[in-house]
């Protein structure tokens, strides 16, 4: 039985529920992940707004929040305990419930089968199950605001012993639910990642060797492998922390257990996780640059080997999150060395991006603007990483806003710039309509300016000794002169949130009113552009056969400036 028949044969003419809700089509599941990520991003953005207001103008009423009930806010004034919940939920939501579903669940699911010429994922039903596990985890996490005591408030890292005993935070069920929701989310993405690896390894179209794989697929594949090999110890840790809370064990409580162990388990996962989030964004940028430079990617092999090297190194850098936690200095030094070493492969990738642009025939539609925005902003995040990677410097910086600015400059470009680059680039493929170019440019320009205005002042705050995780900076005499910078960051946060309005308008407006998209609006070479926009169920009417690499632009002597990667093959190309 051919693969197409295997995928299509089971469902004759699906009804509404099967087609749009409980769909096993990777394209629907991918878009479900993306929509869910956007919904969670609204909540994550709202937490940022309330937090930022409290930091700039402490204990004044936050506009538009007068309706919030009493244990959380008092006529718009943030309760200190609720502030801790906001910090915790902001990190948890943005990392686990926005970045991962957007970049891995959404882009990975949607793009990988199309880019490798496959009709669907290897396990379509498992794919649907993964999404619904993730969906349940999201609902559970949001519901935790409503239980007595409120949501989790021990930070998105849930350090022990703070998180290990209810009496330390005053939050009883909030943290228990947090642990269940995060555990479910991890399980969901573990299953999704395994599905993606099997798909990318086993279902490539004939002729699509690993050396011809589009870089987005390489990045998704590496991210899935990193996640699969790093998540186990954290799942074990989450379980033990849960037992510490509900069954009276003391794994992470001093005397019988060891609080540092939780940090080791968390960051053994947490650091590879940073690259799990970063790589898909990098992959999107690497797909977009050659298309709008009309040039092959510079250094394909160097990029692939750098990615693999960074993936391996990411397993031996985790303790740089713990330089301030009292780890043995003999342990800190080797971790400083590996941390600074890991900037080498990423420098190679950034230089390859710049060299791809060099002497290209550049054009600047919205996806290209986001891709260039990624390069400039991520560079700041990467370079400040070298500062905090050094144990001696990190001792001073780690508990300050410098680190907050650093990791936002690393993750925001990857998730938001990379994410919007991908959404604007593949929107025509996903929904069959073109986005509005003017609204797209407005959205990009405002977001770029506002983002920098939020986080550049935080570097200065950090250098001024402003510590993280405090409710009211004015309580400290030496922080008062820094307050104007908080004001700038908060006003910019409001602008940043409002800047997303053109995008929302564009996203939903173009869905109904946008110009109909041709199959290949950007004249790109990879396989997903060879099928219709949007692709049919089963993706390709005739299975493609791959005849060349993914980035054959402006080949000397060729009649056209682009040679498509695949050509129509014959039935049986996917024989299982």
């Amino acid at each position, binding site marked *: *039985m051919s693969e197409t028949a295997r995928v299509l044969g089971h469902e004759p003419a699906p009804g509404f529920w099967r087609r749009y809700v409980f769909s096993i089509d990777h394209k629907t599941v991918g878009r479900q992940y993306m929509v869910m990520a956007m919904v969670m991003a609204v909540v994550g953005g709202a937490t940022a707004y309330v937090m930022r207001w409290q930091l700039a103008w402490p204990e004044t009423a936050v506009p538009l929040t007068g309706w919030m009930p009493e244990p959380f806010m008092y006529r718009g004034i943030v309760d200190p305990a609720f502030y801790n919940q906001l910090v915790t939920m902001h990190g948890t939501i943005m990392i686990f419930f926005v970045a991962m579903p957007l970049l891995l669940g959404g882009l990975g699911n949607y793009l990988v089968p199309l880019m490798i010429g496959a009709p669907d994922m*290897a*396990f379509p039903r498992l794919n649907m199950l993964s999404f619904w596990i993730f969906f349940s985890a999201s609902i559970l996490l949001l519901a935790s605001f409503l239980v007595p005591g409120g949501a989790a408030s021990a930070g998105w890292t849930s350090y022990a012993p703070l998180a290990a005993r209810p009496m330390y935070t005053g939050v009883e069920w909030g943290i228990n639910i947090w642990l269940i929701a995060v555990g479910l989310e991890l399980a969901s993405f*573990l299953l999704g990642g*395994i*599905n993606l*690896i*099997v798909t990318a*390894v*086993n*279902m*490539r*179209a*004939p*002729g*699509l*060797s690993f050396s011809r794989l589009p870089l987005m697929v390489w990045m998704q594949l590496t991210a899935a492998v990193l996640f*699969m*090999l*790093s*998540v*186990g*110890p*954290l*799942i*074990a*840790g989450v*379980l*033990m922390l849960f*037992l510490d809370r509900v*069954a*009276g*064990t*003391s*794994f992470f409580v001093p005397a*019988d*257990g*060891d609080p*540092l*162990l939780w940090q*080791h*388990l968390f960051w*053994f996962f947490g650091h590879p996780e940073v690259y799990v989030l970063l790589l898909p964004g990098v992959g999107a940028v690497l797909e977009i640059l050659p298309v709008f430079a009309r040039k092959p990617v510079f250094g394909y092999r160097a990029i692939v080997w750098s990615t693999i090297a960074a993936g391996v190194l990411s*397993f*031996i850098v985790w*303790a740089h999150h713990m330089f301030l936690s009292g*780890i*043995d200095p*003999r*342990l800190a030094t080797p971790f400083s060395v590996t941390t600074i070493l890991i900037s080498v492969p990423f420098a190679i990738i950034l230089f390859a991006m710049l060299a791809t642009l060099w002497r290209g025939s550049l054009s600047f539609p919205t996806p290209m603007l986001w891709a260039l925005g990624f390069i400039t902003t991520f560079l700041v995040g990467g370079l400040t990483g070298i500062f905090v990677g050094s144990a001696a410097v990190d001792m001073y910086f780690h508990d300050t806003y410098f680190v907050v600015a650093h990791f936002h400059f690393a993750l925001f470009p990857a998730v938001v710039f990379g994410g919007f680059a991908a959404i604007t680039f593949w929107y025509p493929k996903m929904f069959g309509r073109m986005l509005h170019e003017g609204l797209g440019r407005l959205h990009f320009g405002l977001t770029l300016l506002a983002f920098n205005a939020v986080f550049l002042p935080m570097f200065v705050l950090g250098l001024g000794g402003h510590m993280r995780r405090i409710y009211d900076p004015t309580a400290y005499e030496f922080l008062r002169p820094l307050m104007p910078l908080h004001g700038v960051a908060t006003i910019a946060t409001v602008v940043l949130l409002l800047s997303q309005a053109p995008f929302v308008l564009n996203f939903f407006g173009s869905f109904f009113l946008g110009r109909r998209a041709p199959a290949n609006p950007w004249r790109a070479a990879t396989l997903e552009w060879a099928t219709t926009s949007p692709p049919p169920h089963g993706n390709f009417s005739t299975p493609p056969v791959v005849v060349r690499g993914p980035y054959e632009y402006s080949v000397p002597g060729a009649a056209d400036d682009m040679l498509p990667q695949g050509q129509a093959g014959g039935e049986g*190309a*996917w*024989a*299982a």
Partner: protein
Amino acid sequence: MSGTAATRAGLTHGRLGTWLFLASEVTTFGGLFGIFALVRHGGGGWAHETAQLQLGLALLNTSVLVAGSAIMARAHGAARAGRVGAAARLLTAAALLGVVFLAIKGGEYGREFAAGVGPGSGPFWGFYFALTGVHALHVAAGVLLAGVLAVGVGRCGLGAGAAGRIGAAALYWHFIDAVWLTLVALLYLGSTRAAVGAVITALAAGAVASAGVARSDRILAVALAAGPLVLVTALLLVLAPDLATMR
């Protein structure tokens, strides 16, 4: 570059997916065993607690679980040979043995609770209940898996890919066995040497059991087990300096 990618990799989707899942399971249990080893190394040993456990019941359970695994392997063989009735019967038998294992384990828990011992009674008991509890959940999943397959084979016979699914379920059962052997050594025998011995025994048993298995499977098994094991070992080695401060 002829033929499909599936034949190039030499493995069906199901088998490759199962191997990848087991590799991630190695890191999960590796994390649990790693923490156990660290805390035990930092403390004074748990001879007193170990003596309170029911070694006889654990050994009985070991034979039950290993028998279940062997039966799963035979069910896989029967499915490949197309013997529908035998495959369904063997799968049912394996699921029942899993239930027997859980019943014995539940009885053990009952005795311990009756003696006033629970997860909060001390570091050893925390580990004992966490490790055996997680393992028991895995056995329950194995029972479910074998049961669903047994019902499916009984009703619809051996469709396309049924043998592959049974083979994947058998792989999972073997993995649960290996984990249990390590647990018996760590918790009931209570010595690092016994644990190393058990792991070697499990590996040897795996090697013997895999005599009839495809070569690509064996290579993947070694690669996917070795990768995470190396990672977890590296984790432990790196943490070694911390041991000094924990004592």
